[in-house]
């Protein structure tokens, strides 16, 4: 199972063993679900989100080194976000069968059950990402990813990043007004003026078309 907390493979291995890839993929799926579940009424725990996002990045990096991770072709300008959804679905469709049930809170100490692949047992590392595997293999993870993209899709493509950096930027400015002032102005007027002058945040960098889709999702989620 996940002996020693899912140790990384030995440096000598050229390719990750299928079992290890499976476990690693499960961990990745689980992490993405966790990040998505941060959208609650109460503000999500930033520390937890950052730690999960770092874990996702680590897995990604290792998968890239393995060759298990295909960096997608840079998106062309007019591409609809629906296309993104499809490509991510392919990326994230693991060699799992059926819906993986949500973690059972009643049995916290149970070992993670890794459901065996629907395809042949010896799935080649690159095989996870290509072809049309059975579309009905949508686990609970996949539904969550759908939800993520629903919320993102409602905005125009490319404006998504700007939307989030917008919220964050203005709040940061409020910060500067309220906290950064050493012996600063007591009068409300000064405070408001300072705020107004920095109220319009600079537009964020353009679409990160050269990053993996997963990266993109993860970063947006961390920011929120």
């Amino acid at each position, binding site marked *: *199972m*996940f*002996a*020693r*907390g*899912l*140790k*990384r493979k030995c440096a000598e291995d050229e390719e990750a063993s299928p079992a290890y890839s499976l476990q*690693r993929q499960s*961990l990745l799926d*689980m992490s993405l679900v*966790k990040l998505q579940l941060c959208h609650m*009424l*109460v*503000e999500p*725990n*930033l*520390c*937890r989100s*950052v*730690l999960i*996002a*770092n*874990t996702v990045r*680590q*897995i990604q990096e290792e998968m890239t080194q393995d060759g298990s991770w295909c960096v997608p072709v840079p998106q062309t300008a007019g591409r609809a976000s629906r296309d993104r959804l499809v490509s991510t679905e392919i990326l994230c469709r693991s060699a799992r069968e059926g819906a993986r049930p949500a*973690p059972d*809170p009643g049995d*916290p*100490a*149970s*070992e*993670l059950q890794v459901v065996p692949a629907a395809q042949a047992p010896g799935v080649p590392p690159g095989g996870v990402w290509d072809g049309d595997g059975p579309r009905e293999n949508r686990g609970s993870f996949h539904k969550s990813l759908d939800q993520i993209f629903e919320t993102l899709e409602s905005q125009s493509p490319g404006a998504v990043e700007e939307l989030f*950096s917008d*919220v*964050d930027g203005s*709040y*940061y400015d*409020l*910060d500067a007004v*309220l*906290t*950064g*002032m*050493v*012996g*600063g102005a*007591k009068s409300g007027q000064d405070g408001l003026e300072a705020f107004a002058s920095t109220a319009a945040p600079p537009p964020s960098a353009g679409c990160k078309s050269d990053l993996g889709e997963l990266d993109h999702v993860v*970063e947006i989620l*961390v*920011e929120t």
Partner: protein
Amino acid sequence: MLVCQGPGIGSVTHKSTWALGARTKKGLLADVISTVEFSHSGDLLATGDKGGRVVIFQREQENKSRPHSRGEYNVYSTFQSHEPEFDYLKSLEIEEKINKIRWLPQQGAARFLLSTNDKTIKLWKISERDKRAEGYNLKDEDGRLRDPLRITALRVPILKPMDLMVEASPRRVFANAHTYHINSISVNSDHETYLSADDLRINLWHLEITDRSFNIVDIKPANMEELTEVITAAEFHPHQCNVLVYSSSKGTIRLCDMRSSALCDRHSKFFEEPEDPSSRSFFSEIISSVSDVKFSHSGRYMMTRDYLSVKVWDLNMESRPVETHQVHEYLRSKLCSLYENDCIFDKFECCWNGSDSAIMTGSYNNFFRMFDRTTWRDVTLEASRENSKPRASLKPRRVCAGGKRKKDEVSVDSLDFSKKILHTAWHPVENIIAVAATNNLYIFQDKAN
């Protein structure tokens, strides 16, 4: 809340003679306890809970006629410190849960403490009233105003004793200074200032001034998408008022000197233990995240708690800790499950005893661990009603990591991960400890010699 307390004995860990005593009234608190803190003299013990309430216990004076109740803690004051709020800008609730309580050193008859939730810190004054004035001229005994024209004689009001009343009143509210969730507050040794730390920033306050705070640490990146590390805890040095430390989610501790610059973004010292490459896994970073940092009373050492261990650092050595104590190493093979059920993100606290010779921290299954630094002995004890008879010594517990389980051992798979002891406190002078187990408070003491 259930409060269990009573006599215990002897050295901290040897033969573990901590024991449980008489119980106070049940049903005091329905909420999960979120912080526990002794006052500087140890005569008061404050607890904060998830519902925003603060309950303060006071130690009873020694009473010859009731020798068995020597030093029992009874409820002294209860008040609602924080209420739930709504942040309209972000459309998010602000929890009323009390994250931390810190006492101010006593300066007069009244007692002061700071309590904080995620966003707002409050200074509370707790004062006693045991006299009331009688015989006013302008009003009756029941408070009604008297008709001035009917007053024919003047009298001097007399102070008469009354039943002790303990009042808590909010004296200062320090608000609107934190964008992120406050995880620590720490009173400075100058008794005039204190710090408050959230995930990305640390602010310095003067206790008298509520509309202004100074930002002294800011690790927020210009682009939030580059965020990979947050502040997890912060504390002032117990004697040097210019020194503070803060820990991070990457397992590092930074010591800052406020004299070097106004913004302490550059640390004076950087404490990090090099990673052991043989035990590296995807969870390495998460379990290295420091959940608590505490200076020793002497000020020479500091202690950090990460997921599986407690480390003691010498402030003069940044390269590695001087001591590492394993809290529950048997969980290392279960990290994936603990990640799945989120337990791996639990933030355990740790504390020193008064002489810095022992340290204590909590674990799962209502277990807590004590380490004696001089004898290098450690013990696992359990805070639960079923296993603690009044006035009987606590029995040490053992967890069976694998293989054949011996009698009286608890197997790892039968541990209850919902029963976690995150908050513990040690009396500043005596061998009295307070252990919060969900919504129950346990107080264990030494037996009289």
